[in-house]
């Protein structure tokens, strides 16, 4: 039987739920940063998360970066055809990589790999009472679980993005050189000609926010998990969807501010 829903009540409930969840995330953010001064003592937790989020994600970021660079070179070449000289390809591709493709694609990859895995890990801990066990030992789950993850996410995503940018540029050069006949000198002269540090730093600046928000959403969704294994699965998907959406929304907002 299909239930009759009052659309006003349905919409009202959705808005209240959204605001309530937004409030919870804000409170979690505030509590997460309130433990930052204790990170010196908790450095082992931080380093473990930096390794998990950073070095363990590097192979994936390298692969994604390389192919992103290659496909963006083909795309640029196809759009330049008959209109603009291919000698400018290096400049067009590198600016696109530094400002948008490197930061955003790396952030989305990390949302999939790290955001979802944080939600699954913490969700499993929640449904198996491990979070309650931490509390019962007098350990704050926010200090122990959230602060190291959010700070590691904030610090490691810019570093991963630097790798992604360099590898993507190499990928673009490979296509330009081997398939489009552009020499090394022409390609990199073009990159240098329109190179602006603001593009690079602007792109990297955004990734601090992307990394932090991805980890924060993973923690929030994980700690709200209910309903056993099914709930953990749902949390993983929800964490990815929410953090990838937030990356794109933040990207737009930050782009309008920075550039």
């Amino acid at each position, binding site marked *: 039987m299909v239930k009759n829903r009052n659309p006003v009540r349905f919409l009202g409930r959705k808005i209240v739920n959204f605001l309530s969840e937004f409030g919870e995330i804000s409170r979690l953010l505030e509590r997460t940063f309130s433990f930052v001064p204790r990170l010196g003592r908790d450095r082992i937790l931080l380093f473990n998360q930096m390794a998990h989020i950073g070095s363990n994600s590097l192979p994936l970021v390298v692969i994604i970066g390389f192919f992103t660079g290659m496909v963006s070179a083909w795309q640029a070449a196809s759009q330049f055809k008959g209109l603009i000289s291919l000698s400018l390809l290096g400049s067009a591709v590198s600016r696109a990589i530094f400002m948008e493709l490197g930061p955003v694609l790396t952030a989305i990859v990390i949302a999939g790999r790290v955001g979802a895995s944080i939600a699954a890990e913490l969700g499993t801990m929640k449904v198996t009472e491990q979070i309650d*066990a931490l509390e*019962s*030992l*007098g350990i704050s789950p926010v200090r122990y679980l959230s602060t190291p993850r959010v700070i590691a996410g904030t610090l490691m995503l810019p570093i991963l993005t630097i790798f992604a940018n360099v590898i993507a540029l190499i990928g673009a050069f490979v296509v330009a050189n081997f398939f489009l006949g552009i020499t090394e000198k022409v390609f990199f002269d073009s990159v240098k000609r329109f190179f602006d540090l603001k593009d690079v730093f602007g792109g990297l600046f955004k990734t601090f926010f992307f990394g932090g928000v991805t980890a924060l959403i993973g923690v929030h969704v994980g700690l709200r998990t209910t309903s056993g294994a099914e709930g953990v699965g749902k949390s993983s998907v929800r964490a990815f969807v929410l953090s990838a959406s937030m990356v794109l929304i933040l990207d737009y907002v930050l782009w309008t501010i920075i550039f």
Partner: protein
Amino acid sequence: MIEIHNLKKSFDDNEVLRGIDITIHDGETVAIIGESGCGKSVLLKHIIGLLQPDSGTVKVDGISIADAKEDVLYALRRRIGFLFQSAALFDSMTVYENIVLGLWEAGERDEAKLRQIATEKLGLVGLGARSLLDFKPSSLSGGMKKRVGLARALAMQPQYMFYDEPTTGLDPVTSDQIDYLILSLTESFSTTSLIITHDLFTVKRIAKRVIYLNKGLVFFDGTPKELEQSTDKQVVQFIERFVK
């Protein structure tokens, strides 16, 4: 001393606790029994502040749990040992790390001392003969997990011990072993113990006082012997499986 006054808690439309009044004095060993879903675990989680009451108060040693500041609450929790129904061992850590986590977080950094404490607590729960310190929880049996959970709770030398269904899901032999272990620990350390259980055998072996929760209220409060002798239809129906 634990003082619970007019404690009420609902989840959506489900009224789980409808006004609980219990006082537990220092050194008492109290079993809380009742049907599944009657609010036993919910009550226990209120006492350590894992849940907030809708109304009413819970005080431990005079500290109101709902009003306590975070640092006060965490300090209080370090005086309470909690054995979870599922043992709730941290599966990313070894047995050793599980046992000493609370001590490490409390500032103890002497590795040799921590290993000695972990070995000693494993010995107390009957796992001293086997060197399990570097095992992960996934390689332990259900009974061993409960024992390690107990060792972890004991590592903090708690003033209070809470056991949430300590024998549920275990075979009769292991259940008996866990019962006698709790009994010997309770007698050795004179802790105030609160045991949530369905198992009347556990109640008779360990508890000096038993509280029967029914429909969110305290339905019976007395000794295990008085419980057995009760003629109340509800109580009789609950315990008859064990009396037969």
